[in-house]
């Protein structure tokens, strides 16, 4: 088994070495690209045809764009977000009155880490429709990402009327849970859980992942493990869930479990990063090194586009895989200008402590005092 893995890795490594040198394949039957699994590939082509035939049907266009976004997420391929964005842009030009297009574009921008662009669309929507549930939910979440935990809660209240109790409570618990009320938020979420039986799967997974996050930050390890597992059974391939669960497992030093969770998820850079860290922790130096090199190439190609959206992951990569706290701190500080979620606090504090960078340590501490953020992983660093 191990031998097989090594051979596979060697072939993989050889294919990495060939980056940069163009070649002519030797056989016609040589497979150059494996497209997403059958049903998805045909779905994509079906959507394309539908769009082409029904060029004047906004409803179909909207469905297609939404579908592309979902495919982009499951495939971890931002191309599909691009396809969706192109549909949305065209329709905003044709029918700028319909706010739903702006909401959809904000969703895409948020996913692409274009937070300011997303906020612009959201504010446009909220100006015309103060209680627009989608816009409120994304805006609240976005403000949390930017560290405006208190402000974010303001956008949860209108959801009570427009989107129902469960979504409003989920939204508010996320904000409050970051804002010094983790324990109470967890109790609140546990309280509404029995009412989720008939809810759509997205809602269930969302509430479960909120609970898992709270339990983890409160140091309730078994509870966190339970919620993560329940969520992953419902949505086994959700990269957000997997990434958070992997972070939890890594903090517990459960390397074997992390590896078995992520070993076939190397398509996603964030998950490949966690896999390489687990391999390093377990002493699988060769595997970890190969995966780390692959990540290095991906970061490099990402940077060529002058898209600076992955500083968080890159900072973790420099700290945990390359043992370079100087570079890590630099990236963590850049990232801090954009994102301030618990994981961003962690990486900034960790590399600042390694570098004894008083400024950044002070910055994090005053942020923690201001927000009252609770997180055992951060506490253990201090």
């Amino acid at each position: 088994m191990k031998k097989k893995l090594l051979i596979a890795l060697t072939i993989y490594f050889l294919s990495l070495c060939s980056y940069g040198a163009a070649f002519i394949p030797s056989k016609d039957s040589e497979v150059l690209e494996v497209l997403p699994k059958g049903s998805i590939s045909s779905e994509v082509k079906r959507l394309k045809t539908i769009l082409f035939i029904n060029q004047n049907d906004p409803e179909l266009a909207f469905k297609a764009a939404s579908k592309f976004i979902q495919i982009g997420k499951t495939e971890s391929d931002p191309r599909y977000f691009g396809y969706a964005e192109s549909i949305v842009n065209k329709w905003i030009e044709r029918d700028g009155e319909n706010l739903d297009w702006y909401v959809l574009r904000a969703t895409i921008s948020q996913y692409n880490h274009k937070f300011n662009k997303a906020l612009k669309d959201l504010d446009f929507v909220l100006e015309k429709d103060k209680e627009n549930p989608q816009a409120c939910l994304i805006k609240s979440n976005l403000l949390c990402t930017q560290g405006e935990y208190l402000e974010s809660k303001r956008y949860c209240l209108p959801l009570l009327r427009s989107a129902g109790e469960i979504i409003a409570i989920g939204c508010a618990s996320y904000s409050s849970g970051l804002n010094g009320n983790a324990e109470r938020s967890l109790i609140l979420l546990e309280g509404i859980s029995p009412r989720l039986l008939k809810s759509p799967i997205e809602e269930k997974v969302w509430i479960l992942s909120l609970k898992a996050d709270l339990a983890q930050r409160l140091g309730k390890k078994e509870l966190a493990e339970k919620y993560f597992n329940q969520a992953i059974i419902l949505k086994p391939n959700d990269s957000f869930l997997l990434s958070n669960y992997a972070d939890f497992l890594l903090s517990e030093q459960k390397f074997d479990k992390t590896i078995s969770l992520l070993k076939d998820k190397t398509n996603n850079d964030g998950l490949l990063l966690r896999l390489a860290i687990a391999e390093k922790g377990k002493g699988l130096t060769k595997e970890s090194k190969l995966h780390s090199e692959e990540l290095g190439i991906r970061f490099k190609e990402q940077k060529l586009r002058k898209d600076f959206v992955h500083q968080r992951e890159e900072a973790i990569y420099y700290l945990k895989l390359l043992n370079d706290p100087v570079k890590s701190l630099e990236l963590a500080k850049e990232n801090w200008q954009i994102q301030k979620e618990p994981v961003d606090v962690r990486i900034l504090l960790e590399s600042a402590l390694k570098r004894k960078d008083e400024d950044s340590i002070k910055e994090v501490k005053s942020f923690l005092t201001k927000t009252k953020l609770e997180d055992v992983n951060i506490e253990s660093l201090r």
Partner: protein
Amino acid sequence: MSHFVKIITLQLILNLVFTLSSFAHKPSDSYIFIRREGDSVFCDWEISLKDLDYAINLDRNKDGNITWGELKSKHKDIEEYALPQFSFIVSGEKSTYSSISHLVNKHSDGSYTVLRFKIDPPGKDKLPKDFDITYDFLFDIDPQHRGILTIRHKGNTSTYIFSPENSTQHFNLNESSKLKQLLDFIWQGVWHIWIGIDHILFLLSLLFASVLIREKNVWKEADSLKKVLIEIIKIISAFTIAHSITLSLAVLGIVSLPSAFVESVIAFSVFLAALNNIFPVVYGKKWLIAFLFGLVHGFGFASVLMELDLSKSSLIISLLGFNLGVEFGQLAIVLIFTPIAFLLRKTAFYRSVILIFGSIVICVIAILWFIERAFNLSFLPF
């Protein structure tokens, strides 16, 4: 439409709302390499098979794999689809291309087809140095797509990015790239002085009294332009020498000061300089104030310069350019200020409104800046 759409998006948003931390691999890119060999210009254009499959369907037998055989059979179609969207334009006329070969290359997100072709420019000059490139490829189906162009010319490699907002770019290989760099940094320096209102206010506060002479606790107008000019030259030179020293020390990494400290002291220096006009303490040796605080302003300039992504090889050029730019910017301010102040110096308006009232306003602004910067607050609009 509206209601129906809302049901979809709320679930979709729940599905996406927490995907922020889990990025996939990079979005769609194509890579273009242009190089001169002998008396011809060659181009390698590398395009992702995934992108091409979406645009013109490469997987003919629909088995989810793209083989070399399938790709070969589509080479002609790819050329017809792609090449018209890439224009190499010399004096308004498009070049023609002669295809050389089709290869394959690997990148971090999969396989790419490589179109290798020769560029045949219109007109007699087969090696034009002055040309435009227009790149419109894939932007209609994926606005996140980028064309990344690398030009190799006389041992220099430069990279350019094409996006929907920036799809035509002008190239002039005659221009020595070092000179252009220098000019860029000079402009950055000028720009920084002009938008860096704190530096301007510091200088102006020092210059206000330069057209006056203090005798027996009373302001009198300076009698000759020569004396005024000498005073101004002394102040400006002292400021310049001082900030050049610290700017260089900081950029070369020899000395570094925390930016909050630097910015606070800069605000304080503005306050003192203005206060000195209201309650004159130092009036003979203002160049000394300019020198002392110039040292701190230099650190402020350095933080701007260091944000501009410096490479080690061009450090000297950027340092020199930025410094020169700052001087030019200052000079412009002096050239505007001096004649006006000299002409107005005898008026009561100058002495009460400009000198005293102006200095009071500057003092207030500077104190507010100081509070903002020292205590990390934000309430001023500038």
